[in-house]
């Protein structure tokens, strides 16, 4: 029995030794995302106590629909992201309006913080450092139009849980710091349900993204089309 446990541990740790940065990031994505297509209810709380609430539908790595629930003044201003393209539905025009990807969601949270929850596919990863507890990987965007050009992320070794991240410019300047907390069972696994994003220069300016609900859910592809934006609620 003891021999079996030792053998299993050796196998696990040796697999960790052999693991590539890409595999680590894929595993970390698996912790953050329950599947290819799923639903989120998200709350964003900013420094001034303004709270926003969104319903999010994600399909694959390039399709995200964000429905604004709160504040009431923004209700109905739904966001659609298709890869590098974004539209916002304007209720008093009753039509989608093309906007830039740099449009902010709320406080320190950018649209990409809840709409693009996968790093693999968007970033190329390189191992920067590691210790007994975690790996430190540097991710570099391999697509145009992503919210962050580079991300430095710390991943826990024993369970691939993201611990924290630095969001960087292309030149390596830290824009924001993020902490992944609130680990609990949701959508079939233990996942982070809080992301605390703080400005790197003014750390007192921060937003907390809280995942209130999460479940795997199928959506028709036509839902993620600017021509159907505003037609249906989530």
């Amino acid at each position: 029995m003891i021999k079996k446990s030792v053998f299993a541990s050796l196998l696990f740790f040796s697999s960790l030794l052999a693991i590539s940065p890409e595999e680590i990031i894929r595993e970390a994505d698996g912790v953050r995302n329950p599947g290819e297509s799923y639903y989120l209810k998200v709350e964003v709380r900013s420094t001034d106590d303004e709270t926003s609430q969104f319903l999010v539908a994600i399909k694959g790595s390039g399709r995200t629909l964000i429905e604004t629930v709160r504040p009431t003044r923004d209700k109905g201003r739904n966001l659609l992201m298709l890869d590098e393209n974004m539209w916002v539905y304007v209720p008093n025009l009753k039509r989608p309006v093309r906007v830039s990807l740099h449009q902010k969601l709320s406080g320190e949270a950018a649209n990409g913080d809840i709409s693009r929850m996968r790093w693999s596919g968007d970033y190329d990863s390189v191992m920067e450092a590691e210790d007994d507890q975690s790996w430190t990987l540097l991710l570099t965007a391999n697509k145009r139009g992503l919210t962050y050009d580079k991300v430095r992320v710390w991943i826990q070794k024993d369970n691939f849980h993201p611990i924290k991240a630095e969001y960087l410019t292309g030149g390596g300047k830290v824009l924001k710091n993020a902490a992944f907390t609130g680990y609990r069972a949701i959508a079939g696994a233990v996942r982070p349900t809080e992301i605390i994003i703080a400005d790197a220069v003014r750390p007192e300016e921060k937003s907390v993204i809280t995942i209130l609900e999460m479940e795997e859910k199928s959506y028709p592809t036509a839902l993620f089309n600017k021509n159907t934006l505003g037609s249906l609620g989530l």
Partner: protein
Amino acid sequence: MRVFLAFVFLFARCAAMELEVGYQSAYGFVEDGFTRNVPYLQTCFERELFSQEETLQNVRGALRLSYDLEKEEGRVDLRELFYQCLGEQTQIKIGVQQIPWGETFGFFIADIVNPRDYTDPLFNEIDWIRRAVFSLNFQWFPDPFCFQLIVTPVPLNNILPEKEDPFYIVPPAAAALPLLPRRSFALDNFPHDAEYGLRAGYLMEGGLDLSLFYYRHYSRDPLLELTPQNALNPLTEKIHTWGGSFSKACEETVFRGDIVWHRQQPITWPLFGQVERQHLVRAILGADRQFEKGWCLGLQYHGDFWEEASLHAASFRVSKEFMEGRRCLALFVYKGLNNRDLWIQPKVTLYFEEGLEISLRGDIVFGTVKRGNPRDGVLGRFRDKDRLFLWISKTL
């Protein structure tokens, strides 16, 4: 009444609903009185039906009840009542609906599927002034393309100002002339009277979103024909329109544009007179950009090209948000480049807790009707309509 009762029935059984109460008031400086004085109640609902994986079906409706305190008359306006089914790559909507086309702001030249309410031409809130029509609206989305087919079996007319309305702008000399009734449309005349068209869109690899469209419809520009019997006829004729729209985001700047060609559009100068038919091309090209600290700036070029004349204008829009979006200051300016049109619209909007919104805007209009030809511009007839517009709304 039947529409209202049907709506109440559906509303009572709905799964999601919204209610908005509000008040709109406009004070005209020259009139020294209210040109708009309307409390309203607006409700919309959505009810999901028999949805399966990868297919969503629902019924949506929106109704507005308003009462004009100046004319002492109420109005029931069905804004939406349609069934829709969203499949993996298709969407079908059947019923009373608004179908918006176009990418630009201020003047919605490509928004031609629905007729408009022109009783207050300076009130350019397109969601309010579009007249919902009963249509079949089918879309197919084979990525990265999009195809749309629209058929409106029984069209509707624009709503024009009546003689007692503040924006009935026929000159005093002609004010006594009789105004003929509008032509009516009926299902009996299907398909002769029907409006129909299609649109094709393509989202390119680099992010350029392009669409081309064709629509066969009754002309949307309001005009009054002076008949040989010396009466004013609110003429509308069926025309062909071809057009296109585009948008492209480059970093923080978004470029957008609309262009339409109305073939043999009926026109008359001045506002009423003998009607001619000319090809008319309209274009709006613009860009807008978001800056730090809640600033947004947009610029547009406007061109109207008739066979004998052309109008050029520019517009810009600047807005600034304060207090995390709870306050917004905005300014819209439209300026003629080869004519004397000028429209200045400053606006302040206050957002409060629990869905209360208050906005105060001004409409300051300059223009001329001297020459009696297209180079006068389009705003001269409204130059005495400067006003202050208050809008209060509360979402319940």
